[in-house]
């Protein structure tokens, strides 16, 4: 294995060049730091609560050691919530990075192009029509997001040129607004207690999450995250525009279809588990891109930035703003927006500024 370092990048070759690649040092360092931050917040999230646990007890309890009382609090009460927070952040961040790179538009997150809106209309419809109890909400959110993603893809096909990124955005806007207005209509039709339940879900929350929320999310993340990372090579060529990507040998149509399904799937499972925590998918890739100094959102960095954002917002909502009782979906905006704005203002080159 040979390594060479130049201009902040490490080039590695294994064997006689059969496996090789380039790692940007700054992006790698950022990923490590974000991972550490996410782990720290995760442990803190498990340790803090009505019964504060010392960190020395929490870490063994995570892997099944310690006294039964601590074990119960950690494994049954706090771990599911922290895990949902972590995983939701990861899938939203990754999903945003996929859509923003694929469409070459920093505003293209699942919240903006119809996927989240599809989940919203399905869940609110379920609540208003009376099938929204318990796990039904998860299933409906999942189905709504997937159907919306597929509808966006199918509608942006045709016209002989296939689904270009631009067309996906425009069709996504249309689908998103049709769903949103339907949600508004359903909310206006709903009985007061139904409207309260629906609005509670619409803000996105990590309260009262159990293992039945964690399992589908963890399974889907275990499949979709590696698939996304494997697709990243093609994602990077797609960033250069369709013509160049085709010239470099990327099967543009197939790749775009796979990416859309994967991105929608990530957002769908996240929304099913925690509700539409808006803004995470949009802002995490942009924060990661600016911190890493890369021309496009780094996938691993975006996922970890999402996790840090959601976990930090959850901690803040539970222990700093206790008397207000804000859902996590409100706090992510208060926490994430200033970070993005601060990064924007200290951009000293037009390249890193956008």
């Amino acid at each position, binding site marked *: 294995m040979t390594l060479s370092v130049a201009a902040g990048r490490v080039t590695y070759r294994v064997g006689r060049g059969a496996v090789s690649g380039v790692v940007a040092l700054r992006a790698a360092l950022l990923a490590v730091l974000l991972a550490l931050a996410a782990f720290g917040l995760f442990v803190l999230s498990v340790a803090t609560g009505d019964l504060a646990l010392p960190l020395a007890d929490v870490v063994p309890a995570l892997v099944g050691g310690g006294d039964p009382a601590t074990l119960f609090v950690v494994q049954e009460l706090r771990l599911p919530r922290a895990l949902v927070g972590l995983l939701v952040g990861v899938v939203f961040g990754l999903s945003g990075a996929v859509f923003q790179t694929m469409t070459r*538009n*920093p*505003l*293209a997150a699942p919240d*903006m192009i119809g996927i989240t809106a599809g989940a919203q209309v399905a869940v609110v419809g379920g609540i208003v029509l009376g099938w929204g109890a318990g796990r039904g909400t998860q299933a409906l959110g999942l189905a709504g997001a997937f159907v919306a993603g597929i509808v966006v893809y199918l*509608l*942006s096909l*045709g*016209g002989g*040129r296939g689904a270009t990124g*631009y*067309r996906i*955005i*425009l*069709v996504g*806007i*249309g*689908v998103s*607004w*049709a769903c*949103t*207005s*339907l949600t*508004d*209509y359903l909310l*206006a039709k709903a009985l007061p207690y139904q409207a309260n339940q629906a609005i509670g879900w619409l*803000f996105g929350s990590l309260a009262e999450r159990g293992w039945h929320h964690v399992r589908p999310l963890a399974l889907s993340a275990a499949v979709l995250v590696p698939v996304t990372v494997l697709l990243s090579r093609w994602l990077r060529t797609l960033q250069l525009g369709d013509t160049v990507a085709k010239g470099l040998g990327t099967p543009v149509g197939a790749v775009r279809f796979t990416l859309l399904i994967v991105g929608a799937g990530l957002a769908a499972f996240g929304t099913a588990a925690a509700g539409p925590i*808006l*803004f995470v998918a*949009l*802002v995490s890739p*942009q924060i990661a891109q600016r911190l890493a100094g890369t021309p496009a959102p780094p996938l691993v960095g975006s996922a970890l930035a999402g996790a840090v954002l959601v976990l930090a917002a959850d901690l803040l909502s539970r222990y700093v703003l206790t008397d*207000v*009782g*804000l*859902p996590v979906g*409100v*706090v*992510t*905006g*208060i926490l*994430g*927006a*200033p970070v*993005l*704005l601060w990064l*924007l*203002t*200290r*951009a*000293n*080159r*037009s390249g890193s*500024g*956008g």
Partner: protein
Amino acid sequence: MSTPARPPAGRRLPRQFAALAGIAAVLAALCLISIAVGARSMPLGHVLGALFDPGRAPEDELAIVRGLRIPRTALGLLAGASIGLAGALMQGLTRNPLADPGLLGVSAGASFGIVAAVALLHVSDFYGYVWFAIAGAVAASAVVYVLGGLGQGGATPVKLALAGVGVTFFLGSLTSAIVLSSQAALDRYRFWSAGSLAGQEAGTLWRVAPFLLVGIVVALSIAPALNSLALGDRMARALGRRVGLVRVTGALAVTLLAAASTAVTGPIVFVGLVVPHLVRLITGPDYRLLLPFTLVVSPVLLLAADILGRVVVRPGEMQVGVIVAFLGAPFFIALVRRRSVAEL
């Protein structure tokens, strides 16, 4: 995208003007229908009578037409034109098809202004809200513009768009936080945020009309500059445009238009997002045609939706915001699919 089959611009213009005149005629007809239709409908003959021969019209019809229907129709006309124009400007300034009039933080600032006025300052007079909404919108867009313009390179489209999204979500979160903890603010906010033309008096219209008219004039005046901007900042500069000045003027026009109309009608964002895309299918990317067309097409959409909202659930009403998005979206998707879209 260039389509070589098109005739040269000189022969195309008369057709464009004919189309513009046709749409304006549709708009005039919609205005009459909007005055005629409502909880108490009246035949068009009576409407014309009340409008042009008020001496002989019955007292009650005159009261309805003058007191309710004309202010509402005029508001739809002005607000529709403003919000559409603001959307077209925003898309031109940020060169982003996802840009809507709210992207500069205007809608979020207006909502925050209203909610803060109700919850923190206990304002309950309706005219009070309008000023707080305008103040919030102006402050938010100023913050967005300053933040987006810091650092080398000035207010590039991407920085502007991202700063706008950041401020929008930040204020949106604060608004939600206040709304979740104050019942009075929630009631007022829900009424406003649905987006409606109903229940406005002529006085409100007079208060916001000057803002809107100035905004429209400023917007139309920078159309040629937007064309240069579409070629990219460097090209625009090479063509002799003062890019920074164009952006500030454009942002000012968007703020005037969107702030004043949003303050009164609530966020009817969809019109501003979609109409410019629709119009681009007719006119192509030339802002000198795009802006005037947007000016007449947007109120057509808004008034048609408002009339429909008054008819479908009689004697009640459905909010215009809901109808516009629900009916407009499929139509928009169909158009996007049928024609090759002119990219920004």
